[in-house]
């Protein structure tokens, strides 16, 4: 039975990858189980300088999901490259995916250039859901031209495969995906969280201090599957599918929709063992479905 998959020449022992922001820098989780069972790890999103992020409350419960407005809290790219990634590399032999964010093209460039120089980084994932401070605050990823602009900029300074992580808060995700492909992206991750809101009806205020936040969790799976499939049909880049995945059957579904690897996000917050459980469950499900090689189902629908 073959469970390994290949992203731009980089082999993952299986398609299961904890999504950025739901697994810290991998170190905390390494005390829960042996994280070497994971195909890859997408690290907490990092910006050029350290950020506190948004004020609390940052979390809101939702039906079959949650809202977060952490706001990219991170120690900055220098600490990531000099401390966090080397510490992870000591205990983890799988694929390390550095997730970078920026509020300007220059910041994306500097951040990507720093992580690209780290010998321990295998793939760079670029979060284009941040507001563009020079572009009226609109997220880079909500416009095909700016998404392409970020892609070109980061590709210029990266020697590692670059995956652009797409925002679902758009009218036509396929158009954005094509723009990234034309601009030289090596792959795509989708979907990021869906913009959402909850209101505390007793306090008459939004639940999260930042008013709005990113909705994720099991409830978003159908949206993610639809978008992964649309993007798979619209371009030829490898996809890391993400959104609402909570079990091995969701992984198979995501791959059938067109993903080569599958990220598990909010489920890690419900169950810190989720990724390990899915990795263990996957071969059993493959056997049941008569899948000899997991690669044979990618985009099969």
């Amino acid at each position, binding site marked *: 039975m073959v469970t390994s998959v290949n992203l731009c020449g980089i082999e993952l022992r299986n398609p299961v990858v904890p999504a950025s*922001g*739901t*697994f*810290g820098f991998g170190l*905390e*989780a390494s*005390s*829960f189980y042996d994280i070497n069972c994971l195909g890859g790890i997408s690290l*907490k999103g990092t910006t050029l300088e350290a950020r*506190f*992020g948004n004020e*609390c*409350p*940052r*979390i*809101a*419960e*939702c*039906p*079959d*999901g*949650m809202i*977060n407005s*952490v706001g990219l*809290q991170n120690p900055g790219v220098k600490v990531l490259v000099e401390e966090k990634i080397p510490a992870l590399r000591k205990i983890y032999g799988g694929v390390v995916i550095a997730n970078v964010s920026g509020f300007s093209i220059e910041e994306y460039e500097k951040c990507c250039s720093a992580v690209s120089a780290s010998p321990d980084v295998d793939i760079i994932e670029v979060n284009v859901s941040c507001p563009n401070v020079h572009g009226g605050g609109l997220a880079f990823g909500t416009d095909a031209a700016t998404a392409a602009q970020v892609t070109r900029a980061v590709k210029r300074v990266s020697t590692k495969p670059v995956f652009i992580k797409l925002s679902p808060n758009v009218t036509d995700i396929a158009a954005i995906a094509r723009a990234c492909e034309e601009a030289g992206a090596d792959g795509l991750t989708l979907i990021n969280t869906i913009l959402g809101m909850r209101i505390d009806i007793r306090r008459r205020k939004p639940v999260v201090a930042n008013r709005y936040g990113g909705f994720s*969790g*099991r409830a978003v799976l159908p949206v993610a599957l639809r978008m992964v499939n649309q993007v798979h049909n619209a371009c030829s880049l490898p996809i890391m599918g993400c959104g609402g995945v909570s079990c091995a059957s969701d992984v198979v579904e995501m791959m059938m929709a067109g993903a080569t690897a599958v990220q598990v996000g*909010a489920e*890690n*917050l*419900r*169950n*810190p*063992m989720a990724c390990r459980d899915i990795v263990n469950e996957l071969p059993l499900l493959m056997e049941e479905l008569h899948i000899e090689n997991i690669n044979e189902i990618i985009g099969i629908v």
Partner: protein
Amino acid sequence: MRQGDYTILENSRIASRIWRMTLSGDTEGILRGGQFVDVEVDGCFLRRPFAVTDWTKDTLSLIYKVVGQGTEIMSQWREGSSVNLLTGLGNGFDTSLCRKKALVVCGGIGASPAFHLVKELIEEGKEVTVVLGYNNASELILFDEYRKLGAGVRVATMDGSVGIKGLVTDVIDTLDGGYDFFYTCGPKVMMEAVCRKLDISGQVSLEERMGCGCGICFGCTCHTADGPKRVCFDGPVFKKEDVIW
């Protein structure tokens, strides 16, 4: 952190909107009073965090206030049913910081996380005064239990229905002193008032809406004098000097 299934031995109301749940299962991961567990609630996406009130080799008890969707569901749970918990979360109180005489100040449901702390302090031969503050007598919890541990227990209620009428800080004014360290857990305004009143060092147990409960999501980060800290993982117990009110 450990994950496991636990069986409910008891789940009953002990005060106004306040319930105690006793569970049987592995407690080896719980090391200090002030640590918490994250309870999986069928019908909710996220787990719900609760301080461990007390534990033995194979049982643990939680005291919780019914305030929303999750705790409402929990209050319906029957004895004998199974619950999934993450245990041994958070840092807990540090008893070694108190040399001889501790002042423990709790407000409302905050009496729960400090219970095992007081037990540990007394087992270590330290003298402990516990000040409990409530809105009124209907919320009174753990009063007898604290007395049975051998702590001096003083109570304040807002309406004077039990103990002195007023705030925990009013009770502190009547104490003899001689304390070398304090611990506090309760509403933030109360803990702030306690920290400002007492000139000795102390530890404060903070509360925040949490995502994961185990340090991976950064959903509960607070500002401290020592930089951003995750309440669930770096806390919930912080040095008085580090807390930014």
